[in-house]
């Protein structure tokens, strides 16, 4: 795991999140939300493209964003499992987004001062974008959690279901050398701020903060949930049929 692996990890988080969010298009509870989720998906996809393109350059093996996205096997994907979980109902999607975007926002804000200037520039753009994602998710968390009884019940269940997967966000997967060199951020250092943002978002939404217990992981080592294979089959199928074709 080196700078390439680090960039790919961040890029895969964004790519897989974008893929899941795009599944909502034409399926959202209201038109405004079709627009909003597509917007967020576009931001995440944009971040993925910048990160994977840069990773490919760093690698210097002639790959590009598309060969990384479309021609790696499941075991080579480095995203956290949180992003690959199926969308579930709207509350599950909002819980996933709240947890992911809050993590990404803290991460990118810190990476703005990365010694890797290219990464710092990507992070600067992404910090602004993810601020909106956090706000949007937090608003919906309140609307669902502090709206009707059904909304509250579903939002609470969603937060409980997704919570265990947040631990992986802060796992110690980033090479210490990269952190020491000021290129990367040690994920564990992001958790305190993350918790404070998330806990207050949940509190405002009257949704209980789950206990920490089960801590699934493995995504950073390319061991994914069984949902991932189906996601990749859909994502990659067409590209894989015609290797080397331009689109």
């Amino acid at each position, binding site marked *: 795991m080196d700078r390439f692996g680090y960039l790919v990890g961040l890029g895969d988080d964004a*790519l897989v999140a974008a*893929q899941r969010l*795009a*599944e909502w*298009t*034409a*399926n*959202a*509870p*209201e*038109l*405004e*939300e*079709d*627009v909003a989720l*597509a*917007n967020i*998906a*576009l931001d995440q*996809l*944009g971040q*993925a*493209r910048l990160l*994977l393109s840069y990773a490919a350059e760093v690698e210097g093996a002639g790959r590009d*964003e*598309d060969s990384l*996205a*479309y021609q790696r096997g499941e075991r080579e994907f480095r995203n956290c499992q949180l992003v690959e979980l199926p969308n579930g*109902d*709207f509350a599950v999607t909002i819980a996933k987004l709240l947890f992911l975007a809050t993590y990404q926002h803290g991460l990118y804000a810190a990476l703005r001062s990365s010694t890797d200037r290219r990464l710092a520039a990507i992070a600067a753009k992404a910090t602004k974008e993810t601020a909106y994602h956090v706000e949007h998710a937090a608003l*919906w968390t*309140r*609307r*669902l959690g*502090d*709206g*009707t009884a*059904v*909304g*509250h019940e*579903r939002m609470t269940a969603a937060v409980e279901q997704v919570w265990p997967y947040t631990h992986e966000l802060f796992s110690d997967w980033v090479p210490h050398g990269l952190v020491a060199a000021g290129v990367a951020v040690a994920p564990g250092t992001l958790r305190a701020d993350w918790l404070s943002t998330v806990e207050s978002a949940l509190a405002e939404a009257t949704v209980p903060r789950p206990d920490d217990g089960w801590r699934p992981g493995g995504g950073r080592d390319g061991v994914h949930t069984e949902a991932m294979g189906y996601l990749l089959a*859909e*994502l990659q*199928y*067409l*590209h894989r049929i*015609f290797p080397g*074709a*331009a*689109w």
Partner: protein
Amino acid sequence: ADVEAHFAAVIAADQKIEPRDWMPEAYRKGLVRQIAQHAHSEIIGMQPEGNWLTRAPSLARKAILLAKVQDEAGHGLYLYAAAETLGVQRDELYRMLLSGRQKYSSIFNYPTVTWADVGAIGWLVDGAAIVNQVPLCRCSYGPYARAMIRICKEESFHQRQGFDILYTLARGTDEQRAMAQDAVDRWWYPSLAMFGPPDAESTHSARSMAWKIKRFSNDELRQKFVDMTVQQAGVLGLTLPDDALAYDAGSGHWRYTAPDFAELAEVIAGNGPCNRQRIDHRRRAYDDGAWVRESAAAYAAKRAREAVPA
């Protein structure tokens, strides 16, 4: 009456009727029907292309397609807003779509079978839509005309993107080229049918013309589309599936085979390949989202109560 004279004068002067102006009930009703149908078409039109969002063959194409489908949702929103200036509610219109009492463009009742269909929709379907819609930018009803100006700009962007997809495929591998040609073969006649029945059989048209909602007849617009598209097909290096296509030097137009209007009538009647699927999809999204909308409304009501000083 004064108001009638004012209305007639505004129309005659090619100026805009605005929401507060008096208008004939038939003008209002006709516009509501037309704008709603247009809005519904944008919303239903998200599905055939949305079908390829998770499977787009490059990240750049995925981003472009996602932005396009998002634009369609946005167009739907402007158009519902324009319709609301005529005294109807979006939710009411939306329920008329779901119950089948209002229509949407029949073109969206065909499936997107391959990736090239995304290109063909952009090039042909959006192309036909633009030909239909550009004159609406000068339509006599102000809010509709202004919505159309914004929409047409985005649509022409979409059309170029569709053209670009096909252009790339047509210059790609043999399979890609065949995929592009196949898509054009399947989408050509449905696109021609988008202009509606031939003038002789067209209802609504005469009055719409008089009121300057509609500016050209179905057949005039169809011809314009054919003339434009034949040129572009040449650039693409793809063939339009009509052996009768021939340039008529006398008129300066291309002669073409008319679409099968009996098929169009069938699709409008509900028997196209995807009519049920499209509406079922929207109903499912609407029903599945009911608890979400209800919770958001309850939340908003709580906040509104809190905002009232005790």
